[in-house]
């Protein structure tokens, strides 16, 4: 460019205004550019699908059969049957404060129509008020994801004097109406311009609920616009006029309408209100991880007392199989940066693996190896057992022992975005999980490796877990679907310190989660 700018003020004005002008392109432009520059990149969906299928098949294959155990010798378990549902009684009371059972009619057809629309989805809010003995069936029904509970209390429509207040509160809290009202104001500003002269007026619905054209109140948007433009107590008298902008009829009508729309979009983009700082950064995730649990036993004997009957790998003398467990919970994640997220939440863990054994006909005196809590030296403690290690018995009734734990943990971790495309993100994450074990079953191998002793008290109450995962996050509208493998290790032995056995289980599973952003 050879010329010197600004030969006069007019050119200076043109240059300044043109440089200030911005327009924001649609997403398709970038997508087209990207596809043009990177034609060979295709998301490895086939590979990930194959991995998912293989993992699911592996999980199902390794899940062993549950065999009925003779509870006469093993005893009762504590499985947490008293886990209750959320406090439905409190919810019932709160809802009763909002809605009443009066049946007054509304003289205003328009407001009543809106009230019915608001109440429609919440008319079935009857709640089971008895929370002390919620059975599993009701619990499952209540957790179905809908708001339909058992049919004990029906709710009548809102009375007339509360309709207006309810609608007011709804309008004030519902951003949709204010956005529509704002858009209407913008349209009104444009309507006042001399370049757009064709302004039509439309009467509000009359007493019969129909407008001038007889279309009635069938258009919710018009109805909500009317509500947004009026106060809660104003009555919409017949003949009231609500100005709207009629389509321009100039020769270049189509291009101008599109440009008008584009300008409104650009203006809204530049002038959008400041949102909350954490909005868009905070997500909530509901997830479940069906997993296969493995374990490895080691011995921890000390001193001169005869240790276990073998000095080699004790696992060679035990017949055991991995079992199916699950980890499920709720996570909150906060995006520190574009690629790094902090996650924490609550997680319920169920671990399980299976031991093949045989049930004896009579109790057998045996010993288990324990460690003295003060000196640390091992000693033999007498126990009775009716379960024999299947390696050492014959012609006895086979049984499958289930070593289980029920845990609550608070995972705290990080997730890092490895890659991102239009709708799919790839993350890797790790977490530390302080864990409380509130129940379970444990069978200890005897010191001579010939018997199993049921010792639920040997389970450690507090433990620490570590989780490692990688997952794909797929955008599905307002939600994200996250799928990926996860491994969880346990830092400390399942058993308490006084048990001369160390069990370090680990779980390999497939995590599936639904994420919703705030």
């Amino acid at each position: 460019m050879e010329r010197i700018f600004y030969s006069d003020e007019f050119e200076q004005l043109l240059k300044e205004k043109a440089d200030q002008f911005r327009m924001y392109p649609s997403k398709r432009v970038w997508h087209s550019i990207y596809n043009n520059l990177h034609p060979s990149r295709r998301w490895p969906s086939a590979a990930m699908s194959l991995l998912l299928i293989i993992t699911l098949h592996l999980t199902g294959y390794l899940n062993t059969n549950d065999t009925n155990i003779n509870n006469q010798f093993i005893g009762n378990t504590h499985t947490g049957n008293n886990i209750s549902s959320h406090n439905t009684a409190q919810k019932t009371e709160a809802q009763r404060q909002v809605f009443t059972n009066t049946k007054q009619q509304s003289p205003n057809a328009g407001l009543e129509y809106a009230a019915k629309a608001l109440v429609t989805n919440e008319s079935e809010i009857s709640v089971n008020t008895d929370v002390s003995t919620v059975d599993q069936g009701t619990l499952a029904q209540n957790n179905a994801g809908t708001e339909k509970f058992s049919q004990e209390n029906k709710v009548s429509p809102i009375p007339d004097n509360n309709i207006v207040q309810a609608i007011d509160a709804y309008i004030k809290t519902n951003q949709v109406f204010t956005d529509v009202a704002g858009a209407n104001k913008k349209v009104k500003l444009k309507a006042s311009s001399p370049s757009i002269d064709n302004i039509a007026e439309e009467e509000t619905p009359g007493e019969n609920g129909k407008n001038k054209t007889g279309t009635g109140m069938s258009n919710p948007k018009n109805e909500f616009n009317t509500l947004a433009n009026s106060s809660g107590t104003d009555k919409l008298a017949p003949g009231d006029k609500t100005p709207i902008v009629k389509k321009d009829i100039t020769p270049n009508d189509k291009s101008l309408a599109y440009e008008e729309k584009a300008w409104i979009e650009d203006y809204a983009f530049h002038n959008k209100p400041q949102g909350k700082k954490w909005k868009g950064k905070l997500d909530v995730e509901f997830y479940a991880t069906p997993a296969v649990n493995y374990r490895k036993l080691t011995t921890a004997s000390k001193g001169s007392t005869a240790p276990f009957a073998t000095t080699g790998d004790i696992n060679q003398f035990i017949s055991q199989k991995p079992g199916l467990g699950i980890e499920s919970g709720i996570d909150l994640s906060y995006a520190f940066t574009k690629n790094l997220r902090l996650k924490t939440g609550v997680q319920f863990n169920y671990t399980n693996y299976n031991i093949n054994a045989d049930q004896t006909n009579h109790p057998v005196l045996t010993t288990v190896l324990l460690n003295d809590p003060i000196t640390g030296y091992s000693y033999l403690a007498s126990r009775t057992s009716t379960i024999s290690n299947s390696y050492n018995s014959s012609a006895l009734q086979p049984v499958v022992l289930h070593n289980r734990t029920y845990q609550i943990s608070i995972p705290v971790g990080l997730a890092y975005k490895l890659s991102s495309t239009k709708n799919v993100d790839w993350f890797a994450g790790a977490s530390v999980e302080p864990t409380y074990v509130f129940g379970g079953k444990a069978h200890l191998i005897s010191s001579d490796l010939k018997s199993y002793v049921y010792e639920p008290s040997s389970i450690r109450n507090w433990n620490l877990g570590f989780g490692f995962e990688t997952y794909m996050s797929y955008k599905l509208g307002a939600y994200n679907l996250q799928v990926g493998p996860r491994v969880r290790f346990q830092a400390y032995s399942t058993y308490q310190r006084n048990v001369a056995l160390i069990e370090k289980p680990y779980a390999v599973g497939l995590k599936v989660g639904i994420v919703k952003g705030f």
Partner: protein
Amino acid sequence: MLTGCIKNNAAAQEALYNRFSPRMLGVCYRFAKNREDAEDMLQEGFIKVFTQIHQYRNEGALEGWIRRIVVHTCINILKKNKKFTDSVDIIHATSVHIKEDMIPSIMQAKQVVECIRTLPLGYKTVLNLYAIEGYSHKEIANMLDIEESTSRSQYTRAKAMLEEILIRKKIIQKQRKRTDFYGAVSPS
């Protein structure tokens, strides 16, 4: 970001695109007939930018370099559509009618841009290239395959017409009384 673009890194390319695309789309919009055409020009322009990014020699601002590529892309597209081979647009566009209600009442920079876009294609292009993009008449003549004198005369007429429009829209004040033939004008 520049290094990443040279290495064909998608994230770096997207960052560069997000940074410069709003202003570049504004540039394309001044040349194009509508927003869709402007986005097509922008798309093609940025593809050229990314494929030629390795030729950028850090001589001058990156935005200026991108802008030159985008402007040339716009001109090439217009030429490809055989707009400038029609001599009526450049030479004989003397009686042009512009109706008042064709120009929407909008605010700030967009007002001026929209007024520029209402000009006939030839006037608009020369005005954009000379007054806003800063090309000389000689460069414009080479780009549009016209004579330098044609470029000068078209610019003079375009400037006068635009000035009249802006005065009618009360965007600028009338500085001197005009008694020439720029009355009611219609687009070609």
